[in-house]
């Protein structure tokens, strides 16, 4: 069998497997009760969190988000036509909160990632400095030890047996 054919026979099934690969299905229920902005807000807050935002900083974002859930719930309870205006007002308020949270979370992500970077640089610089100090201390200790040994050698007394 020619070499090119053998290579083709190996590569072809691999390509087929790659083409047939599909992401695992997630059986979730599409929520028709929440504004679409909730998804973006949660994603943005998670990005800020993974960038290194502290728990108190994240907590400040969750207060308005939980308020938005309450308002969303109140809006959904208004089903009669005469409440339509109030419902719209509440949903607009929810959208405003979500937009505000997204903006704040975006800024927090930038601040947190900068802070994390500075902290990392600081930590690695500290590691380098500690290594330098330890090397100098080692060298000084070694030279001190040599001098001590030499001094001790010259202080030796020869005692004839």
């Amino acid at each position, binding site marked *: 069998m020619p070499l090119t054919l053998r290579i083709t026979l190996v590569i072809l099934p691999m390509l087929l497997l790659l083409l047939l690969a599909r992401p695992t299905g997630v059986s979730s229920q599409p929520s028709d009760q929440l504004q679409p902005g909730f998804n973006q807000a949660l994603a943005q807050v998670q990005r800020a969190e993974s960038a290194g935002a502290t728990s108190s900083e994240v907590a400040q974002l969750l207060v308005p988000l939980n308020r938005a859930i309450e308002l969303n719930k109140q809006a959904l309870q208004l089903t009669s036509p005469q409440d339509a205006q109030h419902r719209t007002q509440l949903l607009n308020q929810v959208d405003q909160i979500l937009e505000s949270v997204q903006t704040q979370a975006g800024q927090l992500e930038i601040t947190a990632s900068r802070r994390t970077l500075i902290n990392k640089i600081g930590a690695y610089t500290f*590691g380098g400095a500690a290594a330098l100090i330890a090397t100098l201390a080692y060298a000084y200790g070694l030279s001190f030890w040599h001098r001590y040994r030499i001094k001790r050698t010259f202080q030796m007394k020869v005692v004839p047996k």
Partner: protein
Amino acid sequence: MSRGNLLAVFLILLIVFELIVYVSTTPRPSEQFFQLYVLGANHMASDYYPGNNSNIQPNVDVRWYLGVTNLIGSVQLVTLRVKLGNQSIPPPNDTQAIPSPAPVVAEFMRFLQNNETWEVQFSWRISNATAAEGSTRILELGINNETYALQGWSARNGYNFRMIFELWTWNLQSEGVQFGWFAGNERHAAWLQVWFNVTTPSSG
């Protein structure tokens, strides 16, 4: 000590110290999960029924506390779904992460920080129930001062109703809620149920 030796010592110490820095600044992977609990009226895993009698009469207040702790490692949007079932309705399936087909009575939703515990007081009462031909049907449930009309399940002589509490989480990819949660590629589910009987005046 020669310069070469000094340089070698420095390089070794540099590697050691930078490794220490790397290990101390890199977060360790931890198990990702939620805790779900139901406590009785006295905030303990007891006293779930008034007078410790699981036969609940209409218009008698029952107080429980539902709690969720987020240990996923990031902010999560969590939903607690309360379902009313009877003996024949299938419970949620843990291994396949399939929720119970029992009807949803109420749901509570909240954004939860990592390591945060959220507790909800769950005060409920059977506002309206009928009993006919040996079958008891709950028509209305009052939960936290709100009344929920039910097309729910009936139980023979009012025995073996159950309140099912399911933990659902928001899935960013599908932009919807999902039963349980994903930890890596593994699907997990958390749910609880509390059984009770309903005693209507006609059913004795």
